[in-house]
């Protein structure tokens, strides 16, 4: 067994040194009859080659995004990740290190987390960010709970442009903690009147920007209305590349920004692991969930970094903690921070402009197809397309023609006739003119 260094002789010597006759003497506390006499009923050990063959067979039954014209988004995006990102995150010292509880020998992790926090704060236009959450959806649910703590109110107003699966996560955590949710109807065009729903019991308003349907709108009036009623604005960003081109939520008065950071540095991986971003104002930091790296000095006065403000966290505060989160998304945060460092302002702006231009080009091309109409007036790299007929069937037929054309809204919100003809379509820098032409042609054929 290539992973187990002990030899049979080692085991015998070690048992003798311990002073027991056999290994099962060390399992003496297991209740009678509960110790298995034989290994479980599963296949025996395999070599690398055999394992590669077996998993390769399963992998071959999937259609990788890179093998077809690909336009799927709705919360996860395919971007080009520079080769050096994956090389660096696979360095043993990053990959096989634990949470930096011993700061003297984990300055590498702590410094990159400090850099990550700063990048996230700058990108979202906020004062401070934590060292990552599981993903955008759980970060958003935690933000709602944080707003409840800050306002001592228990009602969240959710925009109809919020990703339906994010909404479901907020719903689940709210229903079991006795909080209320007022969720608006699905809003593909970005025209809902959310301000009218804010009242004196509202703790927070949750608005996705760009929305799950791709639409973007000014958040300032919503922030102003929320603040006037003593409520907070939580802005949710699932495509962080957009912030290279459009105003940050922080500029428009958001109190908490949560985001899915997958777009930068991280692959699609069928939905995880991703990296949740969480940023807020300085004054709210003590109610923030999750780990924080902070700057300090060592015994010789040299700058160094530690995990700090941990009196918010479960390992110190136990049942009084701001969250139960422990393990987060450290390595995905590293991928994010390396990719963002390689981009810098210059690269991020260029990347965002390419994304927008590609989406505009695609929108024009699809809009010209008979039976298809772009319904999103303002967008970044994603928009909603109305098609003649059932959108899920259209996407299915497109897949048969070798085009992954987007997400039918009915997959996220089933059973609503008025949404059944809508497709959420994304276009990033990976799409070529040829991809767009193939999409338009295939759409023409299936409609």
């Amino acid at each position, binding site marked *: 067994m290539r*992973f187990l260094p*002990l030899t049979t002789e080692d085991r015998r010597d*070690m048992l003798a*040194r311990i002073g027991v006759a056999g290994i099962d003497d060390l*399992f003496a*506390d297991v209740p009678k009859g*509960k110790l*298995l006499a034989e290994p*479980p009923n*599963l*296949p025996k050990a395999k070599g690398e080659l055999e394992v590669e063959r077996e998993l390769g*067979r*399963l992998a071959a*039954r*999937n259609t*990788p995004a890179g093998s077809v014209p690909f336009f*799927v988004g709705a*919360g996860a995006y*395919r971007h080009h990740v520079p080769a050096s990102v*994956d090389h*660096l995150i696979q*360095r043993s*010292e990053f990959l*096989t290190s*634990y*949470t930096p509880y*011993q700061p*003297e*020998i984990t300055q590498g992790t702590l*410094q990159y987390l400090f850099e990550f926090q700063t*990048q996230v704060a700058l990108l979202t236009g906020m004062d401070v960010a934590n060292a990552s959450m*599981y*993903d955008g*959806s759980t970060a958003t649910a935690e933000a709602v709970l944080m707003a409840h703590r800050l306002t001592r109110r228990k009602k969240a107003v959710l925009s109809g442009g919020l990703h339906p699966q994010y909404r479901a*996560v907020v719903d689940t955590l709210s229903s079991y903690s006795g909080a209320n949710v007022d969720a608006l109807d699905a809003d593909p065009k970005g025209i809902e009147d959310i301000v009218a729903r804010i009242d004196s019991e509202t703790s927070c308003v949750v608005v996705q920007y760009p929305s799950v349907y791709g639409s973007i709108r000014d958040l300032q009036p919503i922030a102003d209305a929320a603040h006037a009623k003593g409520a907070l604005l939580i802005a949710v960003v699932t495509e962080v590349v957009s912030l*290279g*081109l459009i*105003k940050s939520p922080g500029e428009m008065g958001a109190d908490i920004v949560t985001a899915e950071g997958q777009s930068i540095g991280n692959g*699609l991986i*069928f*939905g995880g692991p991703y990296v949740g971003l969480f940023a807020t104002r300085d004054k709210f930091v003590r109610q923030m969930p999750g780990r*924080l790296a902070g700057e300090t*000095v060592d*015994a010789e006065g*040299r700058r160094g970094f*530690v995990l*700090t403000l941990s009196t918010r966290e479960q*390992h110190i505060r136990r049942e009084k903690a701001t969250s*139960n989160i422990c*393990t987060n*998304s450290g*390595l995905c945060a590293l991928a994010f921070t390396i990719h963002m460092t*390689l*981009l810098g302002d210059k690269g*991020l702006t260029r990347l965002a402009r*390419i994304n927008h*231009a590609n989406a505009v080009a695609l929108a024009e091309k699809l809009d010209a197809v008979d039976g298809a109409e772009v319904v999103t007036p*303002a967008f970044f790299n994603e928009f909603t397309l109305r098609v003649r007929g059932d959108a899920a069937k259209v*996407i299915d037929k497109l897949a048969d023609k070798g085009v992954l054309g987007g997400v039918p809204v009915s997959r996220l*919100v089933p059973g609503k006739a008025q949404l059944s003809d809508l497709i959420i379509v994304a276009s990033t820098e990976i799409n070529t003119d040829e991809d767009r032409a193939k999409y338009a042609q295939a759409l023409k054929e299936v409609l």
Partner: protein
Amino acid sequence: MAMNTQGRPPGPGASGKSATDTFTGNSGLDHEQPLLFEVGGTAKTGVDMPEPKAGKARLGGLERKASVGLPGLTEPEALRHYVRLSQRNYAIDAGVYPLGSCTMKHNARLNEKMARLPGFGDIHPLQPQKTVQGAIALMEVLSGYLLELTGMKALTLSPKAGAHGELAGMLCIKAAHEAKGSKRNIVLVPDSAHGTNPATAAFMGYTVRSIPARADGTVAAEAVQAALGPDVAAIMLTNPNTCGLFEPEVAEIARVVHEAGAYFYCDGANFNAIVGKVRPGDLGIDAMHINLHKTFSTPHGGGGPGSGPVVLSDALAPFAPLPYSIREGDKFRLVETEGEVTKGHTPFGRLTAFHGQMGMFVRALTYMLSHGSDGMRQASEDAVLNANYIRAGLRDLMTQPFGDKPCMHEVLFDDAWLKDTGVTTLDFSKAMIDEGFHPMTMYFPLVVHGAMLIEPTESESKQSLDQFIGALRFLAKEAKQGNDKSRFKEAPRLAPRRRLDETKAAREPRLRWRPAVSKEAAE
């Protein structure tokens, strides 16, 4: 598992003589590396891209006016920056990482290679299900392995980490009680539990009732029975427990818990001790999370990502959250929304967008296929053997809070043996750093004074354990003789940093880089 600050001085401690007096502050292979914001510039980039297509913007007037202010680095600069940072990290690949409760075992590189196959790494969670049949099949295969190893009846793969898994399991329990119309509001948690247990229970609005451990470090069924009542929804118990012991009365505890109409949640953080040896399902457990990033060797990556599938008993199976996968003939389907829920399922809701940590599923399954049933069982036996070998090697010098008796895959010492030496658990741990080891988990579990929890895992060879034991014996003797206190008080002396001032970090929080403000400007 986390350390806590109980009894632990958070200041930087004694400084002694400076270790480095070079011009650069560098010390041979160890380099001082400024922050990205001090070396990068907004005019630099490490990514070349073509000019965007010309066209009219459709941004609705929301174009950003000011720049973001993110510094960039060219590729060679970025490589140097992050490689230098990496060299300031301890890692399993570099040395013994005996953090109790954390299971820092070897991470096979085949796991990484498999997770990066385009068929797994480059598929979108919302592309048509017929184009990802192999991915859903992999989730089914992994589920089958986990159910066989635990002897449980159902599971959810979606939780993102252990604490998220606890939440999933406890939400199943809450939903099960609600389905019966019962409104129980108390959760029993032993004092020795991980902090995430009471935090999870409180997060859901439960009141936490503590159960004291017995003098031998385990929980008595009698004590549980005494704490049970019509208001108790569940017990959250770690087994093997955080003192490194298998709970001898676990089956009896399950019986009394069920008799009182409550459910048994087991924290599976220590599953690595019993894989292929004991099935939690045979012990009467209703829900248990499995840390794929501990037991099944998906890498810790400096604190994540993790993955925390939860296995469930028959009683809780219907309440497992969305999404779940089902088999229809030779096809697999993910049930993602309330509207599609199939017969026999009443999910409590949804814990996360999409379907869970696919990247971790691939790695964990790679581990399982590689080890096989024989290898997994042997791994657990070796993990337990290694911990006991350390116990045998140190028992004459260091004290064990519950006497010298066999432990599971981690061995727990207290600080009674350091009494009157002036050396604390923290000092001792920091001195280990100078010897080239990562310290053990310190000051946890809370119920043991000055706790030192050592988990070597099965990945250490006998030679490596012998050296580790030798070093700890040397340090223990030094501490007792008291000839050279500075070895402990000033430790670590040979790491990239000496002890850091945690009090200052908390009192004057600096949580991000900000441009330096000149004195005149500030005034």
